[in-house]
C-alpha cells in the first residue's frame, strides 16, 4: 500500500512538473546585450517584442518577419509577447533598451501615437527609430447583406438626413477607427453614433445580427472571408487609393472626405531612439528582401503587404502624420 501511494505521488508530481516545464520555454527572453561592432551587426541574437498577445495578427506578422530575418542574418530571433497597457508595457521596454539593434519591436500608430497622447506613459513617438513597414491592414466601412444602404452614397445620404441615428461599430474606444469617426463628425459634419466593441469578433456578430447599422472594421482575414461570402458589403475603404482586391469600393478621399486615411493599421518595425544608421539600413534591406519573398507574403496575407516597400522614412512619415492629426483631438 505504501509503495503504491508513493508511486501515485511521484506520478502526480511528475505530471505537474512536466506541465510546468512546458510553459517555461515560451517565456525565456534572450538578453539583448550591449556593445558589438556595428559594422558586423548582428553578432548575437535579436529580441523582437510584440505589444499584443500571442495568436493575433500582430503576433503573426512579427513571427513571420522574425523567422525570415533570422534566416537572412544568420542570428536567432526571439519573439516575445508583452501585452498590456494598450501597448505601453512593450513600448516602455523598447525605449529603455540599448539602441544597438538587438532589441526591436512591432510598432503601430496606436502604440506610438494614440496611447502616449491619451495616457501618461513616459514616451513619445520620438523615442524610437523607425525601420520599416511590415504590413498594413486597411479598414473598411461595411454593412450587412440585408442593409438598406447598398452604396456609400446611400449610407451618407441617410446619415445626413438624420444625424446621429445611424450606428457604426468600432473595434474599441481608443482605436484609429473610433478617432476617424470623430474626425468625420468634426471635420466633415457627418454625425454617426459610434458604438465601441471589443475587437472584430464582437463587431461582426453585432453587424450580422443587425444590432448596428455599419462597422468601421480592420479588414483582417476574418473580415475578408465575410466580404467574400457576401455577409459583409464593403462601402468605403480607408486608404487613399482603392484596394487592389476591392476595386469597386470607393475610398473616403474619393467621396470627398479628405484626409480620412488613418483608420487602417500600419504594423511597423522599430528600434529604440538613436539606432546607428548602418544598423537601420541593414535591417531595412533585410526587411525589404523578406517582404519580397512569396512565402512570406503568403503567410502575412498578400493583401496586407504593400506593393511598394515602405522603409524607415515612410514609417516615420506615417507616425508623424498621425501625430499631427491626432494631437488636436486627443492632446
Amino acid at each position: 500500500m505504501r509503495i503504491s501511494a508513493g508511486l501515485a505521488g511521484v506520478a502526480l508530481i511528475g505530471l505537474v512538473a512536466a506541465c510546468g516545464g512546458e510553459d517555461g520555454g515560451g517565456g525565456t527572453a534572450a538578453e539583448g546585450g550591449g556593445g558589438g561592432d556595428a559594422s558586423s551587426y548582428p553578432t548575437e541574437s535579436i529580441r523582437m517584442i510584440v505589444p499584443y498577445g500571442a495568436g493575433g495578427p500582430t503576433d503573426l506578422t512579427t513571427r513571420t518577419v522574425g523567422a525570415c530575418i533570422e534566416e537572412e542574418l544568420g542570428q536567432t530571433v526571439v519573439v516575445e509577447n508583452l501585452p498590456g497597457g494598450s501597448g505601453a508595457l512593450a513600448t516602455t521596454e523598447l525605449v529603455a533598451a540599448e539602441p544597438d539593434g538587438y532589441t526591436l519591436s512591432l510598432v503601430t500608430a496606436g502604440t506610438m501615437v494614440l496611447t502616449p497622447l491619451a495616457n501618461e506613459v513616459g514616451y513619445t513617438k520620438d523615442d524610437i527609430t523607425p525601420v520599416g513597414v511590415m504590413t498594413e491592414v486597411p479598414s473598411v466601412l461595411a454593412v450587412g447583406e440585408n442593409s438598406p444602404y447598398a452604396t456609400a452614397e446611400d449610407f451618407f445620404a441617410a446619415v445626413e438626413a438624420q444625424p446621429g441615428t445611424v450606428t457604426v461599430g468600432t473595434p474599441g474606444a481608443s482605436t484609429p477607427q473610433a478617432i476617424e469617426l470623430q474626425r468625420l463628425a468634426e471635420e466633415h459634419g457627418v454625425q454617426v453614433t459610434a458604438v465601441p466593441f471589443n475587437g472584430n469578433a464582437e463587431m461582426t456578430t453585432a453587424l450580422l445580427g443587425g444590432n448596428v447599422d455599419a462597422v468601421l472594421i480592420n479588414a483582417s482575414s476574418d473580415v475578408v472571408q465575410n466580404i467574400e461570402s457576401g455577409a459583409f458589403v464593403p462601402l468605403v475603404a480607408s486608404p487613399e487609393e482603392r484596394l487592389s482586391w476591392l476595386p469597386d469600393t470607393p475610398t473616403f478621399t474619393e467621396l470627398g472626405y479628405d484626409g480620412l486615411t488613418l483608420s487602417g493599421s500600419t504594423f511597423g518595425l522599430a528600434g529604440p531612439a538613436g539606432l546607428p544608421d548602418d544598423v537601420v539600413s541593414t535591417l531595412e534591406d533585410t526587411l525589404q528582401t523578406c517582404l519580397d519573398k512569396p512565402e512570406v507574403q503568403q503567410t502575412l496575407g498578400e493583401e496586407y503587404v504593400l506593393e511598394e516597400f515602405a522603409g524607415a522614412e515612410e514609417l516615420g512619415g506615417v507616425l508623424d502624420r498621425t501625430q499631427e492629426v491626432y494631437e488636436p483631438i486627443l492632446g
Partner: protein
Amino acid sequence: MGILEGIGQGFSVALDPTNLLYVFIGVLIGTVIGVLPGLGPTATIALLLPITYEIEPVTAVILLAGIYYGSMYGGTITSVLLQLPGEAASVVTTFDGYQMAKQGRAGPALGIAAIGSWVGGTVSVIGLVLLAPPLADLAVEFGSQEYVALTALGILLVTYLGTRHPVKSLSMAALGLLLATVGQDLITGTNRFTFGSISLFDGFDFVAVAMGLFGVGEILYNVEKTEKAQALKSKISNIWPSRKDLRDSSGAIARGSVMGFFIGVLPGGGGVISSLASYATEKRRAKDPTRFGKGAIEGVAGPETANNASSTSAFIPLLTLGIPPNVVLALIFGALLIQGITPGPQLIDQQPEIFWGVIASMAIGNLMLLILNIPLVGFFVQLLRVRAGILAAFALLVTMAGVFSVNNDIFDMWVVLVFGVIGWLMKKTGFEPGPLVLAFVLGAILESNFRRSMLISGGEFSTFFTRPMSGTLFALMALVIIWSTVQGIRRRRRRSRPSTPGEEDLAATGTTAEPEGTPGAENTDDTEGATTGAPRDGSGSTGATGSTASGAQDGGPGPDRG
C-alpha cells in the same frame, strides 16, 4: 455545415493523437482531483490555465473540459467510500452511497455512478450537438440589450440560488463588478482606478485573479488544516451492479440525464444544483421514500448522472453566446481569450474544429472515464494518502511560473499573491470566491453592453423591456427574486414548527448547496452538509465517521446555519 459533417470533423480532431492524449490527461487529472477533497475542478483549472497557452486552442479546451467532467466521476469515489465528497457536486451521493458502502455494496454504488455518469454525459453530448447550432443562429440576433439581460440573470442566479448566504454572495458579486471596472473604460477610452500604473491599463488579468482566489487561496487554506490520512474501511468487491440494481436505477438515470442537461444550461446552474434536484425528484417519485438515506441505489444513480450531464451542457451558453454559465466555464472562457478566440455565436461557423472537436472529445472522454473508473477505483482511493503539503508546494510553484508566462509581466505575480491572501481570508470568513470571479468576468460584458444599449437606443431605458427577448429575461429575473423570497419565508415558517425530517433536510441542503466551483465551500460546507444531512435524513448511525471526516476537513470556523 451539417451535423453529421460536423461530427465527422469533430472526431477527426478528437482522434488526433495529441488531442487523444490530452483528453486522457484531462479526465485522469479530473478523476484525481475529484478524489482529493482539497482540490476541486475550479482550483485545478485555474492553476493549469497558463499551461494551455502553449497548446492549440482546441486541445486546451479538450484538456480543461476533461478535467471538469472527470472530476464529476472522481468526486463520487470518496463520497461513497468515505462519506467525503471530493468535490461539491458529489455531496448528495454521500447520503445513499455511503450507506450502500456500509452494507457492503460499495461496488455496485460506484458501478452505477460510473454508468449513470456515462449515460448522462453521452445524452448531454447529443443534446449539445442538436441544440447548440440552432441556438448559435438565434444568438446572432442577440443585441447588447439581451446580453445585459443574460449577464444580469447569471449574476443574480449565482448569488441568489444555491448559496447559503445571499447577502454575502451579493456583496462578493458587487466586489467582482467593482474590480471589473479597473482599467480602460471600454466606451470612452479613459482610464479608471489605474493610479497611473501601466500594468493596470487593461484591468486586472482574469487569469491572475482566478488563480489567486481559487488556486493560491485554496492552497493556503489546505496547508492550514491538519493532515490526516484517510483509511479505506470498505472492501470493494464486484463492481458491476446486479440486474435488479440496473432496473431500479434506469428511471433515475433517464430523469437525471434530462434534468442535468437543462440545469447545466442555466446561468448559475451546474453540478451541485442538478444533483440536488435529481435527488429530490427521485425521493419524491419513490414508492417508499423512507428507503432514501438508507442505501437506495436511485439516490446514487440519479444525482451522479445529473451532475455529469450538467457539466457537459454548461458548454452550450459558452460556445454559442460567449457567456460562461458558471465559474469553471468562466475559466475555460479565459483560456479561449488567452488564445485570441472570443467565444460567441460565430464560433461554430468560424472555428468549427473547436466546437465539434470538443464535443467529440467529450464523447471519447466519457468512455475513457467509464473504462478508467471501474477497474481503478482502488488505486484512486490511495491518492488520499498524498501529503497535502507536498501537493501545495508544487501547486504554488506551478501557479507562479504559470501566471508569469501568460503576459510575461511580474505585476501579475503580485496580483496572484494578493488575491491568494484575499481568497484565503474570504474562505475563512465564509465568503465565496465563486460569485466574485463570475461577476468579475460578467461585469465587463454587462457594463459594455449596457452602455452600448444606451448609445444605440439614444439613452432610452425602455429598450431593455420593449425588445421581446430581453423583456422576457427581465421578467424571469423578477420571478426568481419573488420565488426565492417566498421560499425563504416559507422555510422560516416551517422551521418554527416541528417538521418532517426528510422534507426539511432536502429543503435545507437545497438552499445551502454551493454554486458550481466554489472550492472554498467544497470542504467545510459540504462535509458539514454531509454530516448533518445524512444522519438526519436516515438512520442516524453514520454520525461517528461523518464527524471524523468533517473534523479532518474543517479548518476554519464553520459557516453558521442561519
